[in-house]
């Protein structure tokens, strides 16, 4: 969108509806001018205002004893103990990555880092859940290569390790890939800062890159509309920003130095909606006004109009609020780090206005700091007064038919061959990411969860550890978004338990289709209810989130894809956890229910009217979808009370090892995608030791994805059984580790070499072809 089209009203070209224009006129008491309209169009976009999702998001539990900052700020923050706070946030950069995968993914990383250091935290780790179409054509491979290279080039260069993520291939993402980015950082508790302006006469200082024409309308044109028939809309490419990790690296160091020295009153990153967002949000949060001299903003090119300057999404910029006395010291820090710093505005008093109870802080855009007023709006009206939509909800018409179509009726096949087809080592992706910087990574990508030392430059010493994971299961959510989302939360907590951590908070990235489709709004509402049920039962506050809607192309919505990022704590981190493996001779146990139970009062599902529980449900399983192309059926219910008992037991057992006490386990892995079969295979490959399993009833038991289950290995099975009995957790003996074959009696008999080879080569072969691999 270089210029609005001639043939339609300006507000519609900017993505505003007629009703929204009327609402703006009511706020202003007059018609908005073009600059004002441009600012409202970006701030009231779906991406910035959450206008379709806010009424639902309010249901999420957000409070907990450790929560220092909940949703609504740049990042959620929890107290990790020892005087250290941890900030965490997750975001999507889906549409930019669909159009320009390298820059789209790179700027996704850049944007989330700024959200973290805005809080005063040094970014310490990134995770990237990625969703693409099957990489069997050149275009998908271009997307995968580009996104991974973008994350790699930006994250590695800016100096933040990428410690994990997820990689999902499904035809539903072929035209609309998903690129989510989670970042966590840490800070001394007392350095916590919030993005607000205060103090009349204080200076608004723009730090970092000059402002260009890149990314104009990114939040409105790009993020808040679906894609049309074309694979991706090339005309939208100018709405993708271009990143510069070297600029960001200097910006991080300069901002952390400014915060260390106490030189700023408030600080806010510039991301979506650019200066319009940063100025209005800081003023609104501080209940003050702000005058902005648009001519003072350093520019990359000549001839930019005020609305382009105010809505540009040029990367690597921050807005700091500084007292006039501190300005020379701020300028000196920025000079050292070669970061541009320019006074572009000043904080003004809120003014009493007829009809308003409280004084109103006005955001005025001026031509020179004392020059003509080009725009004059209540700051809070941009930041907080976007319309709230209660969009209609409708159960998808085909849902009941899909649920009745159960893959339990599929005949058994060659379980060994099917298992091999489900294995993939993701190291092709994560070896391109620096995952070790800061010397914190005890368990990196490829583990159930990342386990990090709680340490970093400028932090007080601590023996604690933090664990983080991202999880999703769109294949479950497509059949039952409520149960599926609850199960994803449960799986995230289980992954943390595998490295000995207890979950303390979650963030979410809700990737859904077009909110103007009632079925999509139903999915979103159900997912939020499932998350609410799980987080309430597990006492997990939701401390931040991001909603990405309009993930559709050619009228088809993606499967509902809520991604959960979970943060866990380890009290004492002195040794490595047992990990995905075992020792020869270890007894292999299944901890948790062997069969699916009926839904209980605390369960999040299934919805009423679904068939009676199958002991080994396969609905939504990787086996059903990837081996049989069967997407129907019923998702296994989640018993949240029982889940809590299982994860507490496993987290406790692993924590004994991690604290340096030896512990009872020689290996641990949660049972997730691909079921018991994949869990056993991954443990055998990890250990380079085979296993012999008996007593598995059939292919359904082998591949079911019933939650709340772990495979553990131990040389002291009686003690583990005693501990489980005391905790009220069922345990089943599966077999013994040893030898060089993976044997499940009567179902699977494969050489370990074949399993390891298939696991190792699957992804490189799909992405590069066998020839490239051998070269």
């Amino acid at each position, binding site marked *: 969108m270089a210029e609005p089209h001639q043939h339609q009203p300006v507000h519609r070209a900017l993505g505003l509806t007629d009703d929204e224009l009327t609402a703006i006129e009511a706020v202003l008491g007059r018609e908005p001018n073009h600059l004002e309209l441009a600012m409202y169009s970006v701030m009231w976009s779906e991406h910035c205002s959450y206008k379709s999702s806010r009424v639902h998001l309010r249901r999420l539990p957000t409070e907990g004893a450790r929560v220092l900052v909940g949703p609504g700020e740049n990042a959620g923050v929890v107290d990790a103990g020892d005087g250290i706070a941890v900030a965490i946030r997750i975001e999507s950069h889906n549409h930019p990555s669909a159009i320009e995968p390298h820059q789209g993914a790179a700027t996704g990383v850049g944007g989330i880092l700024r959200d973290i250091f805005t809080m005063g935290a040094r970014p310490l780790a990134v995770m990237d859940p990625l969703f693409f179409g099957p990489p069997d054509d050149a275009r998908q491979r271009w997307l995968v290569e580009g996104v991974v*290279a973008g994350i*790699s*080039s930006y994250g*590695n*260069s*800016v*100096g933040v390790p990428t410690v994990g993520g997820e990689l999902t291939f499904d035809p539903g993402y072929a035209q609309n890939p998903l690129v989510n980015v989670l970042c966590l950082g840490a800070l001394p508790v007392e350095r916590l800062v919030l993005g607000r302006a205060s103090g009349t006469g204080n200076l608004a200082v723009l730090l970092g890159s000059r402002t260009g024409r890149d990314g104009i309308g990114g939040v409105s044109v790009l993020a808040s509309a679906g894609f049309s028939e074309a694979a991706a809309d090339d005309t939208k490419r100018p709405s993708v920003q271009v990143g*510069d*990790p*070297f*600029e960001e*690296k*200097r910006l991080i160091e300069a901002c952390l130095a400014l915060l260390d020295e106490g030189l700023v009153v408030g600080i806010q990153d510039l991301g979506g909606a650019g200066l319009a967002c940063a100025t209005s949000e800081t003023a609104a949060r501080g209940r003050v006004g702000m005058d902005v001299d648009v001519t003072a903003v350093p520019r990359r090119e000549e001839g930019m109009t005020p609305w382009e300057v105010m809505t540009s999404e040029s990367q690597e910029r921050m807005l700091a609020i500084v007292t006039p006395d501190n300005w020379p010291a701020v300028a000196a820090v920025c000079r050292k*780090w*070669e970061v541009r710093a320019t006074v572009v505005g000043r904080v003004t008093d809120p003014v009493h206005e007829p009809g308003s109870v409280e004084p109103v802080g006005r955001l005025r855009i001026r031509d020179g700091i004392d020059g003509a007023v080009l725009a004059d709006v209540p700051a809070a009206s941009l930041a907080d007064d976007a319309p709230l939509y209660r969009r209609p909800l409708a159960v998808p018409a085909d849902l009941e038919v899909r649920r009745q179509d159960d893959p339990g009726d599929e005949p058994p096949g060659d379980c060994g061959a099917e298992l091999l087809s489900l294995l993939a080592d993701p*190291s092709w992706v*994560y*070896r*391109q*990411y*620096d*995952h*070790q*910087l*800061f*010397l914190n*990574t*005890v368990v990196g990508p490829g583990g159930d969860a990342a386990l990090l*030392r709680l340490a*970093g*430059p400028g932090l007080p010493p601590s023996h604690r550890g933090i664990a983080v994971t991202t999880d999703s299961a769109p294949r479950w959510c497509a059949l039952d978004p409520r149960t599926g989302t609850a199960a994803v939360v449960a799986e995230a907590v289980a992954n943390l338990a595998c490295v000995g951590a207890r979950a303390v908070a979650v963030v979410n990235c809700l990737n859904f289709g077009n909110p103007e489709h009632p079925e999509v709004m139903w999915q979103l509402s159900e997912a939020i209810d499932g998350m609410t049920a799980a987080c309430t039962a597990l006492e997990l506050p939701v401390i931040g989130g991001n909603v990405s809607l309009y993930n559709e192309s050619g009228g088809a919505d993606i499967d509902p894809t809520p991604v959960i990022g979970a943060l866990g704590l380890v009290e004492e*981190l*002195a*040794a*490595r956890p047992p990990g995905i493996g075992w020792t020869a001779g270890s007894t292999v146990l299944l901890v948790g229910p062997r069969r699916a139970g009926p839904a209980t009062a605390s369960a999040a599902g299934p919805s009423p009217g679904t068939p009676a529980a199958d002991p080994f449900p396969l609905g939504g399983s990787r086996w059903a979808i990837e081996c049989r192309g069967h997407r129907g059926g019923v998702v296994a219910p989640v018993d949240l009370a029982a889940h809590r008992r299982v994860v507490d037991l496993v987290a406790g057992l692993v924590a004994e090892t991690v604290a340096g006490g030896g512990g009872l386990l020689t290996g641990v892995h949660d049972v997730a995608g691909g079921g018991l079969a994949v869990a056993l295979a991954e443990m055998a490959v990890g250990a380079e030791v085979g296993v012999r399993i008996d007593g598995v009833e059939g292919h359904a038991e082998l591949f079911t994805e019933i939650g709340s289950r772990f495979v553990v290995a131990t040389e002291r099975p009686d003690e583990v059984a005693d501990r489980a009995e005391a905790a009220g957790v069922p345990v089943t003996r599966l077999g013994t580790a040893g030898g060089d074959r993976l044997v499940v009696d009567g179902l699977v008999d494969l050489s370990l070499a074949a399993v390891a080879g298939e696991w190792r080569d699957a992804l490189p072969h799909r992405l590069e072809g066998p020839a490239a691999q051998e070269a």
Partner: protein
Amino acid sequence: MAGGARVTAARVGVVVFPGTNCEHDAVSALTSLGGQAELVWHTAERLEGFDAVVLPGGFAHGDYLRPGAIARFAPVMGAVSRFAAAGGPVVGICNGFQVLTEAGLLPGALQKNAALRFLCAPAALRVTSSRSVLTAGVPVGTELMVPINHFSGSYVCDAATLEELRAEDRIVLRYVENPNGSVDDIAAVANAAGNVVGLMPHPERAVSELLGSADGAVLLRALLASAAGERAA
């Protein structure tokens, strides 16, 4: 030497260019091994008082133009050259190695990896010379597991230089399995005097079993011992 009756910790200057990102890790690792490490900003023109200098990894000046191509013009590099000429131990890790080759303190160059992708992975190394400040006292043939983390880590040099490096026993470390296409599996080289060493692997990332390997400590201890020897001399 370390082990003497009154030992003051070797003082190591860790050079920071804008874009360097392994400086805190280097300081932390050296300190944990008994060294005394401090950061030196790239505009510094003097290195007096240091017993050794480390150029850590990262992306100095964003690796723009070419890794190390801009950093070599920093004021501190004049001081590093003089420090090296006077026999002081200088070690460049990863991006630091690239800077040293660009500055002409080490021969050869680092090109993009053969697979044209960034590679972060553990690498098995073999010590192939004990004639350097990084491997003094470490027996030839010692195998070490140390992570690599680079896009441009494929060591290249002309045939004459390679002959010279071999003849003068200046190939300090070799990869057991070549991960990046480096000529002659070279992971680290030294100057003729053995006091300037560049290596692509990150020994500071391997100083604790908690993080997966403590093998890098073998190299950093040797450096600290060389530095302490420098102080005594």
